[in-house]
């Protein structure tokens, strides 16, 4: 009946509007489908919550993890049901390699490189075509730059104390040892027979063995931070290697007054009334010289140059890292300092300054590498059926010019080998090799023992290894951290001529 009612046509038009709205709703749904199927798919497909990944973990052999020499650090074993579980070489590597457990997730490199180890890595295109192949998974083996023997000895050197050791090649950024103690045996977490009890015990352990102190631990640096101040001072042009301060010798006795706060030098023999320059101030670890240098450099530049070294952001590394800071950043003074007192304190590594051992190792490595910061690396290659992907050295930036870095090297050599210096860094010298370094005794305030620090590199002329050693609350830097560093550097240089 085509009789035209005067109201009929509006009904048709309103129905058309409804149709349009509904079509738009379907369009939104199609777009949402596209979002989850295509855009978010790569992340979701590799997530450990994906049942396909969980199923694959039980049936597809995970890639192995090898050290620098090809020693197997992580491998697969089959349990009673024929399902795979992980076995690790030893407790020394637990915080680096981590674990891949059926029930407790993943940690360390097992987590960071989960996609490669499971075999789901690759871009969206290869992922799209993967399903057409016979097997969806191409697990890759990881080749690390780690030296297992060195790692084990580093852990042994720390003994029962809590601490961390980082050793890396300053010219390439390859990490040779990344030790944290106390450590644990990751195999007990992945072995189905012992997993539950082991994991519960680890979580309850007050010493926090699951915490990788080398990368995630944040500590007051103490005097080792002076190298950063030196970098900032020279780099910004505020000081030169021959800068001296007239008021410094006198202040040795009374302390330096900075806005009502007295900066003291707690521990160095009389240097007489000679004002100190960079090398001699570093040799005796002079707080006053560094405080004055820090004040002269200014908070903004100090924070800026620290930022060039990697402060203020997580470090670009294969494992998660904590952020090292020069100051809390809440103050109104330049750089975020509250006032000059905090700036002075930060200049010699006290105050609101917190660093990770890895960061300090990078500081030493930058000085060693003529001022060029290299990206730290653990994984050097990923080998799978599809081929080998090599990960090469990467230069992040030139922090300071080579000549300034060399001046700091001279200062650090004096700190280890100088007449006065060697009293603070006993044992850190590698016999027969010019060694550079700096010790630190980080006061914590209160009644606790200070942290014992040492950073350094050897040989000073053509460095092949840089190191940072931290021993928690162990007393003076020279006494505990320095000998460990010397021993390990010597060991490495002997094994790697």
């Amino acid at each position, binding site marked *: 009946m085509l009789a035209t009612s005067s*109201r009929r046509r509006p009904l*048709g038009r309103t129905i058309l*509007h*409804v149709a349009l709205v509904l079509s738009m709703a379907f369009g939104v749904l199609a777009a949402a489908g596209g979002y989850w199927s295509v855009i978010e798919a790569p992340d979701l497909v590799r997530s450990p919550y994906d049942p396909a990944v969980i199923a694959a973990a039980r049936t597809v052999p995970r890639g192995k993890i090898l050290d620098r020499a090809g020693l197997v650090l992580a491998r697969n074993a089959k349990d009673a049901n024929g399902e795979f579980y992980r076995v690790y070489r030893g407790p020394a590597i637990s915080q680096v390699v981590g674990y891949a457990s059926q029930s407790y997730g993943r940690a360390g490199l097992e987590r960071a490189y989960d996609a490669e180890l499971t075999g789901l890595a690759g871009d969206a295109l290869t992922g799209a075509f993967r399903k057409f192949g016979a097997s969806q998974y191409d697990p890759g083996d990881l080749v690390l730059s780690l030296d297992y023997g060195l790692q084990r000895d580093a852990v042994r050197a720390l003994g029962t104390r809590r601490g961390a050791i980082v050793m890396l090649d300053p010219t390439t950024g390859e990490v040779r040892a990344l030790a944290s103690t106390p450590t644990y045996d990751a195999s007990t977490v992945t072995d189905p027979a012992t997993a539950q009890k082991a994991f519960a015990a680890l979580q309850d352990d007050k010493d926090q063995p699951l915490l990788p102190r080398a990368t995630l631990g944040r500590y007051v640096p103490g005097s080792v931070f002076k190298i950063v101040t030196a970098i900032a001072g020279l780099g910004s042009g505020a000081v030169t290697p021959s800068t001296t301060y007239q008021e410094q010798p006198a202040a040795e006795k009374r302390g330096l007054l900075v806005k009502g706060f007295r900066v003291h030098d707690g521990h160095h023999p009389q240097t007489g009334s000679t004002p100190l320059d960079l090398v001699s101030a570093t040799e005796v670890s002079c707080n006053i010289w560094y405080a004055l240098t820090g004040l002269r450099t200014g908070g903004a530049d100090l924070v800026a140059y620290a930022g060039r070294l990697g402060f203020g952001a997580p470090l670009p590394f294969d494992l998660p890292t904590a952020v090292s800071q020069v100051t809390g950043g809440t103050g109104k003074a330049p750089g975020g300092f509250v006032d000059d007192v905090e700036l002075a304190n930060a200049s010699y590594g006290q105050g609101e300054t917190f660093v990770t051992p890895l960061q300090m190792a990078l500081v030493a490595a930058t000085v060693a590498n003529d001022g060029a910061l290299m990206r730290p690396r653990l994984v050097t290659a990923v080998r799978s059926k599809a081929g080998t992907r090599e990960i090469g050295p990467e230069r992040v930036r030139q922090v300071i010019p080579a000549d300034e870095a060399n001046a700091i090297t001279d200062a650090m050599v004096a700190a280890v080998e100088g007449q006065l210096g060697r009293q603070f860094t006993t044992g850190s010298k590698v016999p027969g090799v010019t060694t550079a370094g700096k010790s630190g005794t980080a006061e914590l305030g209160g009644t606790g023992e200070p942290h014992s620090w040492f950073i350094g590199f050897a040989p000073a002329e053509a460095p092949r290894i840089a190191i940072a050693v931290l021993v928690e609350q162990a007393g003076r830097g020279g006494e505990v951290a320095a000998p460990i560093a010397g021993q390990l550097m010597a060991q490495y240089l002997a094994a790697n001529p």
Partner: protein
Amino acid sequence: MSATPRTASAPSLPRILGPIRPRPRWTETRLLAIVALALVVGSLSLGLTLAHRFVPYDPGGLAIYLAALGGAHVAMVLAGRRSDQILLPAVGLLGGISLLLMQRLPQDLVTLDVGGSTIGLGDIQLAWLCLAIAVATTLGIVVRSDTWLRRYKYTWAAVGIALLLLTFVLGVDVGGQRLTLRIGPVSGQPSELLKVILVVFLAGYLSENRPLLIEQDTRLGPLRLPPLPYLAPMVAMWAIALGIVVVQRDLGAALLFFAVFLALLYAATGRLSLVLIGLVLFVLGSALMASLFDHVRARIDIWIDPFADPLGTGYQIVQSLHAFARGGLLGVGLGAGLPMVGGRLPIPEIHTDFPLAALGEELGLVGVIAILGLYLVVVERGLRIGASAADDFRSILATGLALVIGVQAVIIAAGDLKVLPLTGVTLPFISYGGSSLLANAVVVGLLLALSDKGVEPPPPPTTSGWRSRLRPSRLRRRSP
């Protein structure tokens, strides 16, 4: 009820009905052929994947289903009504996809003991599908007058409210929602049928009061509203929707009712102000519900960030999204998806709440868009039937029926894709569930009946008939 003269009785079709004669429905035949081919290929795909042989996976079940579709087609041809020819194939394809999915899922998800033997998921769904096809076809053929719908709208409303109250009071709590009514051995979800009753009532009410709702005003500030007494049912609807949320904890049904109601209100009156007020009421109501009721707030929290608790409350939706991600563009193939976790499916309630996720994984984005397209086709047919209907009642009724299917599909698809919070509504024709299938079959049957283009005039009287047939294309002027 003030019956205005315009709608005193249903417009009856002219009495020269002529004999009921079979009429070919070629479009429907061609489309059903494609449907059959597609389902056979799909079944082959299942067979290749699951049984590793080039044979349809459950040939018996597929044959029965195709026979049911074919029988329905033959019945429609024989009955000779000039109704829509696209609805049955589209719904048939959706049902076929459902059948393939239910055959592919573990058969012990739902079992029924009959006599001594146990019937599994696939066969139960097959039975419901065949029953649904029968119901839709029967309604499409038999319903010739809409008097019984049009005249007794308040009766229908009362039946609906009675059903609702019955479920409120006697309903059984299943999975946190009081949706199921169990009378003896039979259990079903009355809310499914309720949505059809609601549309029937609204069609009657809105078509009857349309002139008043359009032309008369009360002013509320800058807004021009229909007279307040006529707004009362609208507020009553809102209150019912809230009631459903509160008592039954069925957010999906409440959303569906309210959305369909608003859409029909707009379609009937064309007044945007009403829609705006409705949206405001919706927002207010949602906020109220969210602040008062934990289960509502929990749903909204899970919707906003399901990854915050991927193993706990967010598990279902996270697994659903993972399924879509695994599917990617082309899917992993029918039967090849849904990796088991500890011997169980990764997504709980996959056969009722998440069939789209399963299809997303196995058919990919391409398949999901095709399925959404099928729903759009069904909705479009319904809306077109509405737009070209003979009078206002049929128009609004057809529009409402189309919306019931379309909006429900949107709500559950949006829930699976995290566009909206997850609700418990079913995906029409694809989800497992007898109540849902039957209610949607009633919808399709009514749409078929409404789409009857009416009787063609019988052939001319024989004295002049076949001579004119010899010259078919020329208009001949005839004198008495």
